[in-house]
């Protein structure tokens, strides 16, 4: 009863079609940015290092190294401001959270490429 009612409330905010991507993928996240009255689409690209939460609370973390500085952004999966997530390349992973990448630099942050049907580079 309780979960049914909660689901009915949440379902209005959930996306009907969630883009498919996995941990280890290199993705382009298209997010809507509002500057004053203007809105535009900004792309944040990097490696998905974690997915956590369920339903309304599901988020994913994208890490990229800009210059010498690691940048991580956490996106709510169902946010209307996350317009699209485009998986470019799949990485070979043996765990669900790739937090070990934070300690690595240079060539060490690259993951072995895996051929996967959902990425653009098949």
């Amino acid at each position, binding site marked *: 009863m309780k979960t049914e009612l909660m689901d009915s*409330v949440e379902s209005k905010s959930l996306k009907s079609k969630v883009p498919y991507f996995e941990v280890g993928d290199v993705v382009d996240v298209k997010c809507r940015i509002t500057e004053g009255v203007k809105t535009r689409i900004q792309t944040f690209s990097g490696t998905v290092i974690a997915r956590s939460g369920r339903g309304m609370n599901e988020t994913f973390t994208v890490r990229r190294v800009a210059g010498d500085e690691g940048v991580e952004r956490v996106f709510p999966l169902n946010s209307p401001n996350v317009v699209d997530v485009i998986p470019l390349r799949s990485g070979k992973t043996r765990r669900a959270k790739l937090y070990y990448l934070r300690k690595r630099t240079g060539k060490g942050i690259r993951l072995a490429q895996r051929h996967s049907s959902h990425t653009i580079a098949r």
Partner: protein
Amino acid sequence: MVKLLGKKIGMTQIYDESGRMIPVTVILAGPCKVMQIKTAETDGYSAVQLGYDDVKASRVKKPQEGHAKKSETTPKRFVRELRLADGSEADCQVGDDVTVSALADVKYVDVVGTSKGKGYAGVMKRHGFGGFPASHGCERKHRAAGSISSVASDAGSGGNLKKGKRMAGRMGGDRVTTRNHQLVSIDTEKNLIIVKGAVAGASGGYVEVCNSRTKR
């Protein structure tokens, strides 16, 4: 004034039109039965008595059963009144149903709940006292209340503890009103009220929802 009785279902988040995430509380409210209409002539004040959540007739005392029969309904577990301004007439009849559609034009609501019981709590948790330092020679009184009185504290009679001095004790389980919740939406089909922000009490607890007294 509109009042509805209901049950707190729980909290979640939803996105508004501009894509901002807002924390909301979901309340299952009504339909409430109008059980009695009190008037100044008969009761000394005017009010509408509402009942919510059916309970088996065999589970309640005979007078409650009889009271429910007057409005041709089953006894209710949660009965509360909506006080009306003196001299004003109720715009409903005994036996009427009040549903969430009564809140259709309302933008802000006040919600009354019963806060979660915290048990016997110290002054830091119960009243927000500062406590004492963790170190610098402080011994065995890190969360203590400090001095509660002195000889000079009650000039004349000398050294009495003031009435109402805040001390440790039972915390929680109180009637708590949270005001001016934005009414995000109502679901007339499922009898749901969705308000912005947190409402006092555990999920499953009874709540009263009425339109805001101060904010329109």
